[in-house]
């Protein structure tokens, strides 16, 4: 059936598929708060890094 489809329709379906995939992926990240769960793991690494920076600490 796909073989007989006009090329433009195939492209449209592909674009739609990609958009749907992007939407599903980002929506899952959003609803399960995966973005924040990831950044919560990054924070301790950054704090360790800041502790190692030489600083001119004084009043």
């Amino acid at each position: 059936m796909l073989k007989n489809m006009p090329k433009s329709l195939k492209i449209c379906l592909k674009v739609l598929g990609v958009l749907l995939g992007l939407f599903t992926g980002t929506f899952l990240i959003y609803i399960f708060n995966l973005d924040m769960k990831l950044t919560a793991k990054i924070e301790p690494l950054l704090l360790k890094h800041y502790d190692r920076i030489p600083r001119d600490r004084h009043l």
Partner: protein
Amino acid sequence: MAKEVGKDKFGSFYVAGSKVRNRREWRGVKDTLYDYSRWLKIMMTLGKFVAKPRNVKAMLRYRWMANYLAVPMMVDRHTQGLRGEYLRMCHTEQDLIIDDVAKLLDNLFRGDRRTGNDTEFSKKVVLVDENEMTAVMMGFPMLKCLSRETPSTYVSVLLNQHAMEHYIDVAQEFGLAGDVCPMPEAEAGVSIDDDAPVLGACAIQCNTTCDGSLLGNGVISKRLEGEDGIPVFQLAAPLRHREDDVQEYAAQEIRNAIAFIEEHTGAKWDWKEYFECAKRVNYATRCRQEWLDMNRTEYPQVFGSNLALYTETNYMAICGRVADFEKADRKLTKLAEQAYKKKMRAAKEYRHRAIVWGVQSHFYMDFLVWLLNCWGIVPLTDMLSMVSTKPIAEEDTPENREQAYYDMAWLTENMIMRNRTHGGYKVLLDELWEFTEQFNADMVILWEHICCKALDGMHGMFEDRARELGINLVWVQHDLFDPRIISRQGVRDQINLYMRTVMREEPIDPSLEVLPDEESW
């Protein structure tokens, strides 16, 4: 997962020992997709920000930048339980503030000697305090008015309750007293810790809002002037701001500050731009008054953190200088009017009408959302939102050019917080009871910032007057920037105890009464 407001048990979103919540809220298809679209926009704003190498460099240099990992969570905290127009109002404000802070950070790092080091740009930068009206910059469109303290301390602690503990400790390690306000103490700590961007042609510091603020400014200006070669002007606005006899002095301070900026930047004051900004200040005032008028009725619309956070930003940090905020004012008013016509309510049940007074805990700004969802207490307005409503001169005439100095002085004197914590007991005490009457409030939630000398002295006078008027007065102690002294649960417990023992009430959402958010951002 529920579309209907109040069906969800919000306490179930919290995970003990975790920085973040287990999931985001389902608000029905339409509102969830709207919230998702705004989340995408925030992610794009953050993505654009980190696409610049100098911003990545700054992220790896400045400890306080780690707090910006929590931006989407801050929005989630303030949108908890919101639907329809309320959700849209919150996003209109929060998204604009995020955008504005991202631009501020981008500009700071552009001029910063350690990261972007754009020296030509830096020559156009005037540094201002976080706690300072930016009225003196209304006539300098060719200059950049940037605050280092806003993103390093003020916004950071809104994002992450623990953000300032390191800097408070640094300040105290160097001998600064532990019982001053932790806000200026943390600002001083950032400077001592060599963690403030270095840029600018000059800086304007203001004696707002208290002795602690003066202490912090002294430490910061010593480094700015002595080491970084950035001259600092001390704008000393009168504390007794309601007295007529201080106004000429206050206006002269404004003239002096403008002359100082002109001298160090080579820029010339632009009256046309000033009066354009003045028009926007007046428009923002009219909008705020309309929202407050609605909040006097049975159907308050722009209230709680929707009112508090936006007013702080728009009134003080923006002060008419950014046209986008005028658009936001218009949109917010339209949304509020729509919701008012529909007689909408933001929560399942409204039990008490409250005025929130005193200086709120910045590590728990979403406490106002909690009050509504847990106990049905509607925070109609708060002390920091009850700022000047006096229109300023907005037509460019010779008389108004003279008046403008007095208007800028008036705004500076009436900066958020200082307009109530200084100026005599009338502005702090008497007007509170006038507001409770005007807003038909039966409750006052009184923040007691335990390190604020300006407020603590009046404890007994508040209690006496509340007793006379039959108002339920609930004290809520906190230490502004430091949740190690009184935790978020410590804050909630004070309300829980009052509501259960004095009011003999049960919470609307019992899952919110005790939350495991000690480790949370």
